[in-house]
């Protein structure tokens, strides 16, 4: 058989077309993203390492108790002592930037899909596609459209990490008890009051689970994004692969894992409201190392 679909060629043509006709648009987007990310990064970098570690520990103590605070101190201290702190801050900055952009787009999209069946139907396959596409495939068009550096890294990360934010926002809103919605309406809520006073507060545990997943996916993606020059811990991982340096690979990999656990447990705790007790992305694996779970107060049924 001689016939073959050249989907790859079409995609190439598409990217070329975009580049030829809309490079201005992409430059502008790139500029905004770069500005945003560098602001976040410099905010993180003005803080001395010790101060930031302490802040994380305090946050951990508030959300999860003393044992987790001790774990946080130990984990981040280990990163600092092994000399990977500067790269970790860069990775943290990239992760936070990408996460914020993902949420900024993803949560409103999720709300929209919750209120419109048609939007939901269009969005669902798109989200499936975004999530199942091998992560580094995004890097190629991102690099072509935005050049090398952290911008394509962040853009690719946003695309990769956004789906759970959209999905879990939609799910959370749609799952709110029907009579609770009716209660809102029957007391005379306008549609925005219904959204802000009824739907979002009641969907919050689910939305926070989405935030948690988005952060974790963003973290894993910014590591991969070092391939287009995003920088941070990913660079070390990449270097260790290129040089077959097992020691470097272990050290940098460990820094990623420790950062991941801290971020996961803390963000998870925000979704862990009294009603729903869920597991964060990693906590099922690492629950035992990272200390006790948040006390679940007044657990019903």
């Amino acid at each position, binding site marked *: 058989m001689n016939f073959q679909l050249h989907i790859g060629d079409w995609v190439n043509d598409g990217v070329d077309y975009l580049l030829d006709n809309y490079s201005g648009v992409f430059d502008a987007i790139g500029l905004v993203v770069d500005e945003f990310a560098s602001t976040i990064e410099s905010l993180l970098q003005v803080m001395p390492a010790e101060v930031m570690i302490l802040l994380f520990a305090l946050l951990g103590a508030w959300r999860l108790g003393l044992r987790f605070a001790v774990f946080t101190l130990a984990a981040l201290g280990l990163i600092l002592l092994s000399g990977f702190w500067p790269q970790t801050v860069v990775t943290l900055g990239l992760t936070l930037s990408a996460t914020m952009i993902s949420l900024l787009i993803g949560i409103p999209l999720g709300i929209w899909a919750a209120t419109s069946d048609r939007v939901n139907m269009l969005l669902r396959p798109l989200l499936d596609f975004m999530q199942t596409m091998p992560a580094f495939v995004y890097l190629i068009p991102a690099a072509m459209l935005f050049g090398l550096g952290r911008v394509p890294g962040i853009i690719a990360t946003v695309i990769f990490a956004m789906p759970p934010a959209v999905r879990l926002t939609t799910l959370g809103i749609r799952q709110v*008890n029907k009579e609770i919605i009716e*209660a809102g*309406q*029957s007391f005379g809520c306008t549609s925005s009051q219904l959204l802000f*006073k009824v739907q979002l507060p*009641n969907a919050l545990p689910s939305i926070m689970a989405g935030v948690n997943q988005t952060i974790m996916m963003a973290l894993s993606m910014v590591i991969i994004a070092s391939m287009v020059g995003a920088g941070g811990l990913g660079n070390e991982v990449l270097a260790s692969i290129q040089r077959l340096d097992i020691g470097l690979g272990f050290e940098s990999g460990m820094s990623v894992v420790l950062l991941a656990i801290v971020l996961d447990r803390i963000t998870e705790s925000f979704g862990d409201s*009294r009603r729903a007790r869920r597991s964060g992305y990693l906590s099922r694996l690492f629950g035992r190392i990272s200390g006790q779970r948040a006390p679940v107060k007044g657990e019903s049924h």
Partner: protein
Amino acid sequence: MSPPHGKIVVRNLYKLFGSHPRQAMQRLNEGWDKQRLNRESGVIVGVNDVSFEVAEGEIFVLMGLSGSGKSTLIRLVNRLIEPTAGQVLIDGRDVSSMNRRELIELRRREMSMVFQSFALMPTRNVLDNAAFGLEVAGVGRAARERRATEVLEQVGLQGFATKRVDELSGGMQQRVGLARALAVDPSLIIMDEAFSALDPLIRREMQEILLGLQREHRRTVLFVSHDIEEALRIGSRIAIMEGGRMVQVGTPEELVAAPADDYVRHFFSTVDTSRFLVADQLKADSVPVYVHNGRAPEGCQVRRDLEAQDKHYAFVVDEQRSFRGSISLEKLALLTADDRPLSLEQSLLKPVAPVAPNLPLSDVIERLISNEGPIPVVDDDGRYTGAITKGRLLSRLQGAQP
């Protein structure tokens, strides 16, 4: 058409669920039945040509099996569900033709709702839940918290303000639901199986609270229930729904006395309905009646009659059948001991206050206890219609099925 009087007036209301309700409505008007409509166009008839009125201050109970359209019907009243056809008037204003703003205003000012699942916001504490309606309506924090505290007290929840709602038992949660509904001081409260999720003792307690609140401040209540005991206890009137239709409306007494069909009768089959018996259902013509047509009945004749029939009492009425008085065989025997003719003039008769036909059983019993003989029942125009005797009452209670 006569001008609407009721708090709620519902006229020829329909709700069809499905993709082309208007088209289906046409079919229904052409005479298709529900089954055919469902089979051939996939439309479900939720509410089918329902008309009724609810008076100001009434507790109007909707009863019916699951799926009979009760929830749909009450949601058409505050338009949580859009009607397919028909009219809902509240205080004479057509709800179905209101725009969004008017509808929101109406919901904020005039009505509130209580739900089977309580539908409280788990993210808010008791006080903020109770204040929800006021908050939505834009009442300032201090004022709405004052009002919420007040209504929480009314439902017996003083001291619970800062508790989280999921720390409370079901009964307590529904008190919060009730407080939330009362806080906005509505003239109409819609309650969808509000007490159905509670166990029987708590349910009784909540019914008492509701009735107590009604005694303090009468509001119109539209109450859905599938518990006949509950309906009978709290309902001023009860409407029975079947398959989207309202098959009968009436006071508890009316429904007990004359159920429209087997479906309605079935609801009462488990209930001890004797307490809904009224004088009219207890009377019989077991007491001899003599007519005073200008000439009083003759005493000796009456005595002989009574002795022959083995009766102990007789009633005397006039030509218009107005009740004149009663006489006992005992007294008659004394009066006619010498067998001289005696006309039973008014002065010889014992005055007994007759009772109205709708006097409830409990009052009838009281009268029978304080009265030595039978009790006459007269209709609204004062005409004698029958007598209630102790024997008659007891045999009626024994086989109390209406």
